[in-house]
């Protein structure tokens, strides 16, 4: 008996499709899938998270925010201003606002879980009058009132769960950034809503809107100073400053609110208080700013 092995032709066991073509088709499909699913799940996650009772949210609040660098007089002044705004905003029962001032140079302010609002000296010291400060506070209080921080957590949790279910432990986490773009636009809607609520509150407190746009003017000035290319990351999710200034004028017109009036000056010791807070932050040098990336930066 004669034995022999035939020569097997190439290409039977192996596909001759170009790997790059396959990559493009698969990657395109995966991106579409991730973007669509992220959008749907972020929407659902946000809505569901808003149903979490505020009392539960309190236990999720970051502990790092519990201290404030503000001297007692400044803290009293800020709390008082926030209280005046809150009474005009009909916060739900049991919702409490806690203000914290960090003495650090960061140009930022944000609301996070549990009704905690963190202001940074870097931003506050650029505000020319109380009306601008009130606009900033009212904007952050509006975020708390709209449950935006917990909604942000819900959105992120939903999208991340979906991504980890889809891709498991494979190295496809890179596709996760596709989900960011959908989240960005949600946050813009949240910002617009917070601006609108804040504007109404500022109007009810002062009887006019003069000075409210000084907040955005200050942000715009900071943006110019740092150069357009290097925006503080927190502003990327915010509507354009000009857009927000225009919205103030439009809202004022639509409601017949006056944008003219005399602005309320800040207390005479305001800058001295801020300097004290700066020293306090240097002294105990556990700047809350370091703990921030872990909490959702919803401004």
């Amino acid at each position, binding site marked *: *008996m004669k*034995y*022999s*092995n035939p*020569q097997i032709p*190439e290409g039977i*066991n*192996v*596909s001759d*499709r170009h*790997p*790059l073509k*396959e*990559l493009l088709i*698969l*990657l395109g*499909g*995966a991106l579409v*899938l991730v973007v669509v699913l992220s959008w749907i799940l972020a929407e659902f996650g946000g809505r569901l998270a808003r149903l979490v009772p505020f009392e539960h949210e309190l236990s999720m609040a970051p502990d790092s925010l519990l201290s404030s660098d503000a001297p007692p007089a400044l803290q009293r002044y800020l709390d008082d201003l926030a209280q005046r705004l809150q009474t005009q905003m009909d916060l739900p029962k049991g919702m409490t606002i806690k203000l914290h001032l960090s003495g650090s140079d960061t140009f930022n302010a944000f609301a996070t879980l549990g009704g905690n609002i963190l202001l940074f000296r870097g931003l506050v010291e650029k505000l020319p009058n109380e009306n601008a400060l009130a606009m900033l506070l009212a904007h952050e209080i509006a975020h708390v009132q709209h449950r935006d921080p917990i909604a942000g957590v819900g959105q992120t949790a939903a999208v991340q769960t979906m991504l980890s279910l*889809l*891709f*498991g*432990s*494979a*190295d*496809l*986490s*890179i596709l996760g*950034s596709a989900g960011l773009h959908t989240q960005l636009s949600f946050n813009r809607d949240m910002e617009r809503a917070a601006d609108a609520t804040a504007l109404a509150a500022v109007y009810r407190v002062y009887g006019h809107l003069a000075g409210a746009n000084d907040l955005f003017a200050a942000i715009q000035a900071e943006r110019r100073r740092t150069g357009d290319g290097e925006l503080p990351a927190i502003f990327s999710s915010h509507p354009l400053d000009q857009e927000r200034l225009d919205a103030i004028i439009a809202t004022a017109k639509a409601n017949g609110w006056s944008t003219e009036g005399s602005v309320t000056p800040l207390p005479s010791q305001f800058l001295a208080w801020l300097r004290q807070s700066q020293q306090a932050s240097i002294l105990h040098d556990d700047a809350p700013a370091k703990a921030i990336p872990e909490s959702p930066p919803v401004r």
Partner: protein
Amino acid sequence: MIELIVFLILLTLGYFFGQSAEKRHYRSIIEREARYNALPAIASRYPPDDVNYRQALVTGNTVISVDYFKRFIAALRNLFGGRVTSYETLLDRARRESLLRMKAHADALGASMVFNVKYETASISKGAGNAIGSVEVLAYGTALIEPRD
């Protein structure tokens, strides 16, 4: 951003080095297959009984690693299903290389054919999280060596 850059570099490296390694390997496989074609390797368990052959166990073992690019495509395939073509070449190469090494072993012993050829396949670093996986293929058989007169 850094993550994305590292990822793209790994993907590009995987693609170019993986492709060139694969091409080189296939050239070598095809060339050696032609050389060893005269030495049959048969799956039958019943050797010819015309000659009183000497027998010897011959083995050929290959481990091939998957590159980052192939792994990424395969991971995407997990999503949509279908032929995991990027792993097909890997297994094809490992199988043929193992058979060639087994034949080289038999040839060195002066065998005229190999009977009862079998394959074992194992995945190395299976379940080891993000480690790049490798595949091992072992080919083994009974070499039949014609007795010296």
